[in-house]
Structures are given as C-alpha cells and as structure tokens.
C-alpha cells in the first residue's frame, strides 16, 4: 500500500516537473522571464537573484539582493525609533520618578555598621562589564544617532575620527564584556534563580509605590530581572555581534543583516534597562552605591532591602563565633 502510494507520488512529481519544464520552454524571450519581471518577483518574495562568477570571490555571485532595502528600512526607521523611544522613554521615566518620589532613603537611618555584600572579585567583574558596556553603548548609539545629533555639531572630520575610534573600541571591548558576562553568570546565578518570594516582591511593586519593603534574599526580583537581562540579553547581543565582527565566517549577507537587527534592537532595550539600573544604584537609592564601591553596605540598608539575606548572613556569623557544640563555658557547672 505504502509502496504504491510512493510510486503514485513520484509519478505525480515527475509529470508536474514535465509540465513546468514545458512551460519554461514556451515562455517568451528565449525561454526566461525578463529582468524586470524577475527583479519584481524576487523583490516581492524577498529572494536573491544569484548566479555563478569566475572570480575567486564567490560572494560576488549574488547579483541582486532586495533584502538590502528591508535592512535599510530597519536601520533608518525601526531601529532609530525603537532606540529613541526606549532610551528617551526610560530617561523620562527615571526623571519623572525622581521628581515625584525623590531619593529612596534608608528609613531607619544609617546604622554605622556595615556588612560585606560584594567581594573584590564580584566588584571588579561588575565594573569590567559596566565600563565596557558604557563604551559599547555610546559607540553603538553613535552609529545610529550620531549622524543626526553629533555630526552637525562637530563637523565631518572630527565626527569620523570619533566614530572610527568608537568602532575600534566597540570591536575590542566585546571581549572583556563577554568574559565578564560569563564570570557574572558563574558568580551570581545561584542567588538569581526565581522563586515564590519574587512573585510577592513584584506584586508589591518592590515597595516603590507603597513605601513598604517586601522581603527579599540576596537579590530581589528587580535585581534578578536585571541579572537575566544582562546575562541573556548581553549573551545574545554578544553572539550576534561576533557574527558581525567576523564577516562571512559564520553566515552569508542575509545572516549578517539578521544578526545586525537582533544586535541593534536588543542593545537598545538593554541600554534602556541599564539606565534604570544605573539610576537606582546611584542617585535613586541612598546607600546602594556602597555595595559596588567598597563592597560593604550599611546594616540598616541591608535589613530594609534584603531582609532574608541579612538574616542568613547574621546566622552565618553567629555560627562562626559560636563555640563548637559539646564545649562548655568555664564555670558553667
């Protein structure tokens, strides 16, 4: 039964092929559709007109690639608008939030006692990622907006010098950025697994609007979100960036166009997310920056924002200073 079915299918395919071949030979103008028809067809289908070249550069075999037009639309419209809205929108939100709510203070005041939050390795890695990200972001934004914002201000020669250095920096800083992401993942993933506590934290809006402090471990849901945006978003941005850094080593031009689209949109969204992160880590919250400078945060700050983590840390500290079990204090009996 199945054999007969296959035979029937084969016969059908052969006859269809025959009809197609016939139709081809009957077509006008020496058997092929005309250039303009073919171009229109490929433009509508988004396909390439390809052939064979006798020069060593086989990329040259692509005669016309209509996808270039879509990429142009993406770069000049989609990316510029997405980026503009995301970055300016987030800046607006941050400014508005600061104007309305002001700085989040330590409710119970500075205690004067500190507790270690991030060790030297964690801080150094954070700043390696952060500093490369800022330069990557600025040089990236320059490629999308610089032509309209900076070029008229500083003139073509200075703008080219700046953009050229930006490009070099962008290419090379990709490596410390990616290394930092890997180290970040290894250092912090264990404290960033989402759990039921995060739902409660998100429901309470992180306490931003109601004023309370929902319970949180070492990282609250907001920080976990930033962590995953950085690790996953940054990972995809890095991967798509390497495709562009080594042209034609992984994929052809269509793949490079796609990589650029992914790279651009995700990078814009990450810049927006990082603006919020930078705000809340510096101006937005009293006592927060210490975690990434000295690594030691005020005890009251920690108790308010990371109650469960402080409990854990103090339990650990008590355990460390407590006498081993079985040892009795002198004069106890």
């Amino acid at each position, binding site marked *: 039964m199945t054999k007969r079915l296959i035979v029937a299918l084969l016969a059908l395919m052969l006859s269809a092929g025959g009809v197609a071949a016939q139709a081809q030979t009957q077509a*006008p103008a020496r058997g092929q559709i005309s250039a303009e028809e073919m171009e229109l067809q490929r433009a509508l289908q988004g396909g390439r007109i390809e052939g064979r070249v006798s020069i060593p*550069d086989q990329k040259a075999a692509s005669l016309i*690639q209509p996808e*270039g037009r879509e990429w142009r639309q993406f*770069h000049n419209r989609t990316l510029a608008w997405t980026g503009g809205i995301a970055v300016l929108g987030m800046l607006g939100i941050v400014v508005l939030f600061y104007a309305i709510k002001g700085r989040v203070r330590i409710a119970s005041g500075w205690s004067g006692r500190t507790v270690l939050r991030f060790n030297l390795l964690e801080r150094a890695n954070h700043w390696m990622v952060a500093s490369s990200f800022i330069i990557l972001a600025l040089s990236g934004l320059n490629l999308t907006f610089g032509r309209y914002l900076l070029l008229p201000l500083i003139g073509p*020669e200075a703008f080219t010098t700046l953009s050229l250095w930006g490009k070099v920096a962008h290419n090379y800083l990709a490596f410390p950025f990616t290394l930092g992401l890997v180290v970040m993942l290894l250092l912090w993933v264990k404290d960033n697994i989402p759990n039921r506590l995060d739902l409660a934290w998100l429901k309470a809006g992180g306490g931003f609007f109601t004023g309370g402090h929902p319970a949180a471990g070492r990282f609250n849901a907001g920080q976990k979100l930033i962590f995953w945006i950085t690790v996953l978003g940054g990972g995809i941005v890095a991967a798509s960036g390497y495709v562009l850094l080594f042209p034609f080593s992984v994929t052809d*031009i269509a793949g490079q166009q796609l990589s650029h689209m992914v790279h651009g949109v995700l990078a814009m969204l990450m810049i927006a997310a990082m603006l919020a992160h930078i705000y809340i880590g510096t101006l937005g919250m009293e006592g927060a920056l210490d975690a990434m400078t000295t690594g030691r945060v005020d005890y009251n700050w920690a108790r308010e924002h990371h109650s469960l983590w402080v409990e854990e840390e103090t339990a650990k500290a008590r355990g460390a200073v407590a006498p081993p079990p079985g040892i009795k204090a002198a004069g106890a009996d």
Partner: protein
Amino acid sequence: MARMKFLCDADRCIECNACVTACKNENDVPWGINRRRVVTINDGKPGERSISMACMHCTDAPCAAVCPVSCFYTTADAVVLHDKDLCIGCGYCFYACPFGAPQYPRVGNFGGRGKMDKCTYCAGGPQQDNTAVEYAQYGANRLAEGKLPLCAEMCSTKALLAGDGEIIASIYKERVQRRGYGSGAWGWRTAYRETVTV
C-alpha cells in the same frame, strides 16, 4: 546635466570578463576587490545569461541613506561617490546595497575592514580632478576628461552601455525592436525604480 547610468544587455554579454579586467587595470584596484563582476545566471541551462554588474549609482542610494558618517555624495551627473577620508569601514553600505557593490580591503585583526571601495563610474573622488592623490585613493577620473567608464567603452560586444540614462535606454530599445527579443535592463527596477519599456 546628464543622468549617468549603466545598462547591461544580457543578450549580448559573452562573459569575456574584459570589463572586469579593464576596471581593475584602469583604476589600479587592490587585490581581492572587484569593482565590477560578471554574474552568469542559469549557467549551462536554457536561457543562460551573463550580466556585468557594478555599482548602479542608484536614485535614492541605499548606501548613502544608511551611512552612519554620511560620507556619500551624488555628483551633478548623478554618480554616487564617497569620501574615503570620512569612511570608517563599518560595513553598513554593504548590508544595504542590493548589488553587492561596496567592498573592503581586509586590514588588521578580526573582520577589521579598511575604507570601503566601489565603482566610481570612472569619476574619481572628492579631491582635485586627475591628481595623483585622487588616483591613489579612487582610481581614474575619465569623466573629468570627457570620457565614459572604461568597462563600457571597451566592451567588445557593446553589451555594457554607460552614459546618459535616456540615451542608453533608447539604444537598447532600438536593439530589442530590431532583433525581436531582449531580457530587459538588469537592476534598473531596483536601482532607478523604472524599467526600459520596449
């Protein structure tokens, strides 16, 4: 002023690649870069055609639209040129170009691209016409001497036509009318948003 265009009559092109060679020689194009190439479609099949392709000097050029440093300009003859002193070698024009015209010399590590290079319509660059500096960066400036691009000028079957768009279109129309067939003006719909109707 004329509106300069290229038109390749694919029914005449015999894939001799002389245009490719002439371009490389006339403009001293660096190794690994081909400003012009001949693509054969349906190779070995009925309806095989060869088309000589280079920068088409588009109307509303995509390369100029996406360039982050705005280094492109269009001459009075509608030739699309760029300033290599401003180019940063980012590769954006290559992503946007429908014809694969922009190319880059490989410099430095990774995909470090040098300044973009493409067909200049034998019209040099932004420097003073026909100077040594212009030749070193962009190649010949035949247009300033009143000559057309060498690729088209020396084409043995006169398949590749260069010159004012209206004139070369009328030459092509006459040919098609006389011989009774023609596969059309390759790339015109994409580059100029118009076709040659016979």
